[in-house]
């Protein structure tokens, strides 16, 4: 795995996240978390446990920017935990992946499913934990749907542009 490339991509995505996507004020319910792009598109070469630790770190960094200690951390750990299971459920021969996750190796259909499932899972976890009560459940669901839509578009767009 090319660490330099991964870290540079993470830095660029975090700048976009904090300076652009966190400042969006669309309808009051659109809070996309595009930084998970880096976690989701990481090659699947590392041991599962290291994946989860990387997820925890990325989540903690995001939490510092959001004043929501622990919320993104748990969502990212969950994301990295389920990632290999979702992948093996979507594709029969995992060898075909050749360790790289891309539109080329996954195919459009599997890629879309992979992104949609993981983004919805992550965003729902973040917004549920951030609300920390059942009182705002309607708002949380709406927030999840609207924000996920934008995140999914960004991540799919990134993949399409990269492997056009």
């Amino acid at each position, binding site marked *: 795995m090319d660490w330099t490339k991964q870290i540079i991509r993470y830095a660029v995505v975090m700048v976009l996240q904090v300076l652009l996507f966190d400042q969006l*004020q669309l309808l009051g319910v659109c809070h996309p978390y595009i930084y998970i792009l880096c976690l989701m598109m990481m090659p699947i070469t590392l041991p599962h446990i290291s994946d989860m630790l990387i997820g925890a770190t990325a989540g903690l960094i995001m939490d510092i920017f959001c*004043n*929501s*200690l*622990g919320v993104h951390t748990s969502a990212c750990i969950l994301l990295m935990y389920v990632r290999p299971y979702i992948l093996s459920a979507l594709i029969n021969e995992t060898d075909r992946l050749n360790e790289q996750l891309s539109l080329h190796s996954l195919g459009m259909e599997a890629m879309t499913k992979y992104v949609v499932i993981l983004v919805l899972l992550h965003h729902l976890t973040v917004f549920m934990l951030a*609300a920390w009560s059942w009182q*705002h459940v309607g708002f949380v669901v709406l927030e999840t749907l609207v924000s996920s839509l934008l995140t999914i578009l960004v991540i799919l767009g990134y993949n399409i542009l990269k492997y056009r």
Partner: protein
Amino acid sequence: MQNLLKILLRYSNFLVFVLLEVAAFLLIVYNHAAPRSSVLSTANRMVAWQYETVSEITGYFHLRQQNDQLAMENASLRNQLAQAEGVEIIQYQSAKVVQMTTDRLHNYLTINCGTDDGIQRGQGVRNENGVVGVVRTVGTHYSVVMPIINTMMNLSCRFLKNDYIGTLQWDGKDSRFALLTDVAAHMVVNTGDTIVTSGLSPIFPEGIPVGIVESSVLHEGDSYYTIHIRLSTNFKRLKYVEVIHNADQIQIEELLDGLD
């Protein structure tokens, strides 16, 4: 024993997952109870510095508007000075808003004052128009403030006209409005009634503007009103705030600590 080890090894991924999640949940609980870590929040110097730099750059686009605002504030301060009655218990420390969100359930703002400027956890924050919030986490140079537009916030208020007490809460919908609860049905509530801080807690001195009644509904069979308050503070335009140093607050808190 060997079997146990085998099982542990087999499920090691799941066990690590559970351990990490438990740690993350402890962080959430800890952060809700008493967020004292200034490093793990936007009071973190590097994080706040980054936000401050960006707001300095974008701030140039609002200069004219801010000039007008400052001129108005100067005028009102001079008026107040003219009729000052020597209240020395309360002092104000002005601070700049470095970062703020207004459209989440749990909104926060970061200001460029910290322990080095004498800021302490639990101090009240206001601006020239009204109440802003309470200092929640303090770093050396920056602090995080929980504004009244945060669903975790409760603020004790009273009607200016008859001193009737109510509790202000935010419903998470619109940063311009909040709800006033605990107002019993026998009260007469009119649209346009002024709501100010009650002074029941030492955080805010009494009489700071909170908002005015926008609408009040008394459903049949209810013993309490549902009151919408239009807040005095415009959170979307918040650039400067004042932290309240209340000499009484320290004394009162010492007394309360003594009771435990």
